[in-house]
């Protein structure tokens, strides 16, 4: 094959790699892959099963699942209606509300934890009232951990849902109306099924974020095995004394994150 033809056929297939980009791209891959390789390389595969069965690890795992799923439930209950309003209703201050919803995404989690303390701590703005009126305090409780995780994870759900709702062709709802469907029926049988892919993607992201949450949890909810010591906290503490346990826990978190990515691959990496 002549050079010219090779060049031509390569560009047909999608282009030769511009040499200028190859090196930085390779560094990027290395940057992302090496830490993961390091984790896998240092895993004590032999004693892994034993590590994973220790009470501490199982406790942290159970708590993480309970809290992250609780955070997802809170996020769905509050976030989906919010997404609807943001997508469909032009209310005064909508842009402000949208900015507010995305704030936890850019806020450093520890800052989020501090903010939660100032709001819902025993002396907090809302926390005081909760304590006086209902005797409810949130710090140091599992509910507090769920709140902290919901705080950082809900924005992912809201943003994804809102995007899905906006992308939907609203004329399907018109069609449903002409067929006699009231608003609730339309929502149930047309709108929600049509935005279901976005909804699931949002839930997956929300769950993954909640599962990995550390800074806000340790600052606001505290750290007590069985009550508030979720897996990320357990990893952090184990790191200081028991590296093997830390690695085992990290591996679990890594596996879950990978599973979420695989489940979402069609959404994030659509293949033509």
């Amino acid at each position, binding site marked *: 094959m002549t050079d010219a033809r090779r060049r031509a056929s390569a560009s047909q297939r999608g282009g*030769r790699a511009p040499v200028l980009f190859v090196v930085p*791209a390779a560094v990027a891959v290395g940057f992302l892959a090496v830490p993961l390789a390091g984790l896998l390389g240092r895993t004590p595969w032999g004693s892994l099963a034993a590590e994973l069965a220790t009470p501490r690890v199982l406790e942290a795992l159970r708590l993480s699942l309970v809290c992250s799923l609780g955070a997802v439930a809170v996020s769905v209950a509050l976030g989906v209606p919010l997404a609807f309003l943001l997508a469909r209703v032009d209310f005064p201050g909508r842009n402000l509300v949208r900015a507010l919803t995305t704030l936890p995404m850019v806020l450093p989690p520890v800052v989020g934890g501090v903010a939660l303390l100032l709001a819902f701590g*025993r*002396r907090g703005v809302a926390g005081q009232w909760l304590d006086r009126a209902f005797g409810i305090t949130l710090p140091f409780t599992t509910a507090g951990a769920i709140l902290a995780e919901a705080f950082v994870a809900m924005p992912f759900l809201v943003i994804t849902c809102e995007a899905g709702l906006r992308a939907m062709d609203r004329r399907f709802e018109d069609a449903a109306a002409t067929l006699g469907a009231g608003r609730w029926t339309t929502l149930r049988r047309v709108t929600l099924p049509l935005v279901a892919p976005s909804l699931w993607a949002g839930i997956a992201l929300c769950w993954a974020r909640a599962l990995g949450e550390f800074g806000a949890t340790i600052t606001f909810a*505290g750290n*007590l095995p069985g009550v508030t010591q979720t897996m990320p906290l357990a990893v952090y*503490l184990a790191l*200081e004394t028991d590296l093997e346990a830390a690695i085992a826990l990290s591996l679990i978190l890594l596996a879950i994150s990978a599973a979420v990515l695989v489940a979402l691959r069609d959404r994030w990496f659509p293949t033509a």
Partner: protein
Amino acid sequence: MPRSRTRLAAVLAAVALTLAGCGGNDSGGGSGAGSPEEIKVFAAASLTAAFNELGPRFTAANGGTKVTFNFAGSQALATQIQQGAPADVFASADTANMDKVEDLVGDPQVFASNLLQIVVEQGNPKAIQGLDDLADPDLKVVLAAPDVPAGRYAAEILGRANVTVKPVSQEDNVKAVVTKVSLGEADAGIVYVTDVTAGGGKVEGVDIPEDQNVVATYPIATVKASNAVEQAQAFMDLVRSPEGQQVLNKYGFLPPPTS
């Protein structure tokens, strides 16, 4: 297979392998820190105030050599040193954590001791008189985590006093315990006497009887892998000197136990 694609894959693989090769070695060797112009001191959280005062004094007396501190729970610092973190000096709140790194440091010397105290909010709103009160299930008590020196000391104290406490949280360094109490989130905690002093007007202390209290011993050592060993030794000497002892004393530390 198209030549350009194999070439690309080969380059990516090569770079990835190179970077992996450059990765850390795992036996805690690591490279030391600090050009002779600067040294890094890893010190237990309870030493924060005292060492922050000693730092500038050291710089002034040692031809401008800067000191940067890494304050954290001693257990965290020990692990970091094991993993090869660049430290020149290590000051621990207990001998156990110093023993953890005994192969990596020079001869440790005890330079101070500390007693523990119950810390409560200013004004003692819950009227806590002693260790027995901490067993009250309605009280929110925060302790340092069991692996943190302060946590281990607290467990020992509670054991001696025969009191069972269910903490609502286990913080990973002793300063965090003080924070939770001063914020009003927790009602009480067990910390060092020096922490209560450092906590200023927000907290006050309730004494623990001498027969139940524990004397925390603080060893200090230079790190072998340091490349500023002279300066490291100089810092260690300052801490143990009368001047250093005076500063420590000011913050509530007691002299090293004579035994």
